[in-house]
């Protein structure tokens, strides 16, 4: 098992190298001169040229990439933001916790709601409960986050005054953003749980469990859910990874200083080092979540565990 984890961690290195290369090349060919943006329209061409020389922006692509990678690998340095002049790593450190917190709350909300609804829908297939929950799931997947966020704010903050509409100071502040961001995940997880349970529920070993005289609750939770978990974990992992990438719209609506907003602001400012650093961190987070999901498989299914040796 440890060997497997080590192998997977090593495999992350080429992935992350690839990510840096792709994002570096994409930003390199992006139109717009960062020097001009930093110095403003009033700066003289000489000043701009001098800035470009200083920052090494006139060097060939591979030299620039090599310098970036050297700093990253040797010093863990993601560069300095063009716009704020602060180290990129500090900017990310400021933003990432908020995003993680939000992603975590949304995921919790999605799991707590999605799995039980999915199970009941599967047991009572084609019942009114099933129809309603599937209709809501469709709604949840189709409804844009910003629209739901605005509606929720309108109801709970403006009309009822129960919850704050923006900011990020107390747990109460997290409720509305987590719910509007998590709505889609609830829908995805509900549907995944339902279809996975439906598949398992007709298996022979469920009949065996029932023939043993087990109570229906035990049959469903211990025997059916235990076997239906893999697809649920997979989709939950993907959802969580996506949420960690920052939820630009949710973060904007609820004024949360997260990584999504940092990225959008940096892209607008042509703040290349910040964008590169942000993408790298998001890719890293995504890879780690993927690894954790794969490890979780082993705990859920002994057949997969046997392969990890």
């Amino acid at each position, binding site marked *: 098992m440890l060997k497997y984890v080590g192998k997977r961690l090593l495999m992350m290195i080429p992935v992350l190298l690839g990510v840096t290369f792709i994002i570096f090349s994409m930003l390199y060919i992006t139109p717009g001169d960062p020097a001009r943006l930093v110095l403003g329209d009033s700066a003289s061409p000489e000043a701009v040229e001098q800035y470009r020389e200083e920052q090494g922006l006139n060097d060939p692509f591979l030299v620039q990439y090599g310098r970036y990678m050297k700093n990253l690998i040797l010093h863990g340095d993601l560069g300095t933001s063009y716009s704020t002049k602060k180290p990129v790593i500090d900017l990310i450190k400021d933003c990432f916790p908020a995003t993680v917190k939000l992603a975590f709350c949304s995921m919790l909300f999605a799991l707590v709601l999605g799995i039980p609804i999915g199970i009941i829908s599967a047991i009572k297939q084609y019942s009114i409960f099933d129809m309603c929950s599937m209709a809501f799931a469709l709604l949840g997947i189709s409804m844009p986050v910003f629209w739901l966020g605005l509606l929720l704010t309108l109801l709970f903050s403006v009309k009822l005054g129960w919850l704050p509409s923006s900011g990020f100071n107390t747990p109460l502040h997290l409720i509305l953003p987590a719910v509007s961001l998590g709505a889609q995940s609830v829908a995805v997880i509900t549907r995944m749980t339902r279809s996975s349970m439906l598949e398992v529920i007709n298996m022979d*070993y469920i009949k065996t469990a029932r023939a043993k005289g087990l109570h229906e609750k035990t049959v469903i939770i211990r025997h059916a859910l*235990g076997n239906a978990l893999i697809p649920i974990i997979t989709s939950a992992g993907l959802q969580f990874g996506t949420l960690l990438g920052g939820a630009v719209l949710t973060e904007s609506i609820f004024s949360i200083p997260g990584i999504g907003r940092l990225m959008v602001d940096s892209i607008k400012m042509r703040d290349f080092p910040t964008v590169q650093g942000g993408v790298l961190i998001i890719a890293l987070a995504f890879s780690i979540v993927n690894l954790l999901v794969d490890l979780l498989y082993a705990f859920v299914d002994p057949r997969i565990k046997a392969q990890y040796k």
Partner: protein
Amino acid sequence: MDNEKKNLLEIRDLTVEYHTNGGVVHAVNGLNLEVAPKETLGFVGETGAGKTTTALSILNLLPHPQGKVISGSIKYNGEEILNKSNKDMTRIRGEKISMIFQDPMTSLNPVMTVGDQIAEGIRLHDHLSKADAHKKALEMLKTVGIRPERASDYPHQFSGGMKQRVVIAIALACNPELLIADEPTTALDVTIQAQMLELMKGLKDQYDTSMIMITHDLGIVAEICDKVAIMYAGNVVEYGDKVDIFTPEKPHHPYTVGLFDSIPDIYHEQEELKIIKGLTPDPTDLPSGCTFHPRCPYACEECSKQMPKHLEVEPGHTISCHRFDDTKEVK
């Protein structure tokens, strides 16, 4: 009635239907059957004859909501099973009546150790602590011929025959009075089949269990059954002692004759295997009268109009065929 008390299981006029998108499937049609204590009943018929459906009805485990018992009664120890609540049924399933399913490959939960799967039922029915239940599970494994150390292994680490042993251990763990074995050897190869039959026979005698052996293998019936019920299109067409059924000179239902004729004869050269002409009827659209009449070489006009009654051609040997209406002699 004295006779009723004697029987462990008594099924009367059982009719089961499946409601599907393709129409109503008439799986079991007015079936009568009884099993006495310590008796082994062979339940023989082609695929789709309704054998498994009958078995699932006994445990009240028909697929929900498609499968439905339309009428009839199933009495276990004189108590009606069909109107018992699901909660009451949990005290019968596994404890009084156990079932072994057809395919050992898929009958075990892949994410639970076999020890836990055996102990689970024991804990529930024998009200033992976790440790004691586990201890008994190890004993059960030993009884079916598996080293107890393997209790902490998962089903994927076992071969097909070993899995079926585990399934048998689960079924017998709580010492049930009736064991329903639904083609327990169909998915196994021939040598393992023989081992499994030996094992089941031995355990059945050891635990004094009654058994319903569902099969389409007449060899298995000859091996371990006392009584035989021949089933066709959801009904028992012939029922009797093993000796009655297996003696060709005695009167038989034409379907039984066809079944025995279709066994290849190894002593004489045969150009072609004998078959019963035609196919099992579509259960959504059963023929009128006797369901066997379109394939029956002796069919007459009456057969297509009226369902034959069960006639006792000799004590304990009943046949449902119009040929035996007037005279007990075979034409």
